[in-house]
Every structure is written in structure tokens, then in C-alpha cells.
């Protein structure tokens, strides 16, 4: 439960690049709570594919620009 996800993301940078979009604004566009955006940014929650696509759509970028999964480092 407490293990951080291996999925990394660029949401914070993308928000900054998108005219310093707030977490609340992104949350409103995606349809989740601000706390969920915060948890995703901090790697404490892996969103569903649907939410991941919505986040990418909010920034008008491909999914893999927002989220990265470091292949080759998947084994513990």
C-alpha cells in the first residue's frame, strides 16, 4: 500500500508550462479531486487509463509525454 508507484510523471512541469495551471484547475478539467492530482504528482497514486488520458488531453500532449514507466527497472 505504501510503496510509491514506479510510474513517473511530468504533470508538475506541464502545469507550469500551461500558464501555471493550478492543481484545482487540472482536477476540474479531468474530473477528479485536487488531492488526487496531488497524489498522482507525488507518485502516491497511479491513475486509471481513463484519467491518465484525460490528463494528457488537458495538456494537449501524448500520454507518454505525461507518464513514463522505466522499463528494465521493474524487478525488485
Amino acid at each position, binding site marked *: *500500500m505504501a510503496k510509491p508507484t514506479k510510474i513517473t510523471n511530468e504533470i508538475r512541469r506541464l502545469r507550469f508550462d500551461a500558464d501555471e495551471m493550478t492543481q484545482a484547475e487540472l*482536477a476540474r478539467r479531468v*474530473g477528479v*479531486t485536487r*488531492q*488526487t492530482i496531488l497524489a498522482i504528482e507525488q*507518485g*502516491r*497514486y497511479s491513475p486509471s487509463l481513463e484519467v491518465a488520458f484525460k490528463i494528457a488531453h488537458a495538456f494537449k500532449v501524448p500520454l507518454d509525454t505525461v507518464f513514463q514507466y522505466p522499463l528494465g527497472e521493474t524487478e525488485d
Partner: protein
Amino acid sequence: MSYAQRINLAMMASGLLVLAWYAHQILPLLSTTALDDIAFARPMMVAIGIGIVLSIVSAILVSVGSAIWTGVREGEAAVSDEMSEEDERDKQISRLGDAVGGNVLSVAVIAALVTIWFEHPLFATAHILFLGAWASAIAGAVVKQIAYMRGV
């Protein structure tokens, strides 16, 4: 702290208050009265009733408090967003808490059945069920809080 998390905390606090009240009613009797003679049914029913009412009242208070606080901090438009339906993370955390709570309750039910088979006093069976239900709710709420804080 999300709205769902605040509601969860309020429910947990309500549960603890009710248990404290019930313990205050029953514990002093344990040292002076035989188990079969302790009139626990009425305080137990009252505790269940208080628990239900307290949960509803605390949820209303948290909702009103959250709306006022969010309105003051972020404006009126943010209130409906804050109070909107729980999102996928809330639901996932809720399912996790419910699963843990369900397991705790299952153990309590089995323990209660064992007390019936071995013909223990009704006091024991009733309290295993009562405390099991309470422990189930608290365990679920604690797991949810941990999941909110540390991630799922």
C-alpha cells in the same frame, strides 16, 4: 485533505466517542455484577442509536464546514467541485477500507458463533458482535486514512 477523507475522520471520531460512552456505562459493572445479570441490552441499543445519529450529524457538520472553508479560501465556484462525488481514488480507497473492515467483522461473527456453540453467556456473544462491528468500522476507517496519507 479531501472531502471524503474528512468524512472518514468524522465517522472514526463518532465511533470512538460512542465506544467510550458505552465503555463508561458497562465497564464499572463488570467488577460488581455477574455477567448474566448485567443489563447491557438497553445501553447497547442506545449506543447503536447514538452512533447512527452522531455519524449523520458529524457528516452534515463536516459538509457544512467544508463548504464554508472552501468558499472562503477558493471562492463559491470551488465549493461544488470540493463536494462533488468521490473520484476513482476515493472509491479505490473506500473499497480497500471496506475489505479490511469486512474481514474484521467476519472474524467477529465466527467468534460469536463459537461462543454460542460453547454456550457462553449472552453477554459474551452480544459484545463480540458489538465490538466486532465497531472494530470493523474503525479498522476500515484507519486503513482508509493510511491509504489517503501514504498512497494506494
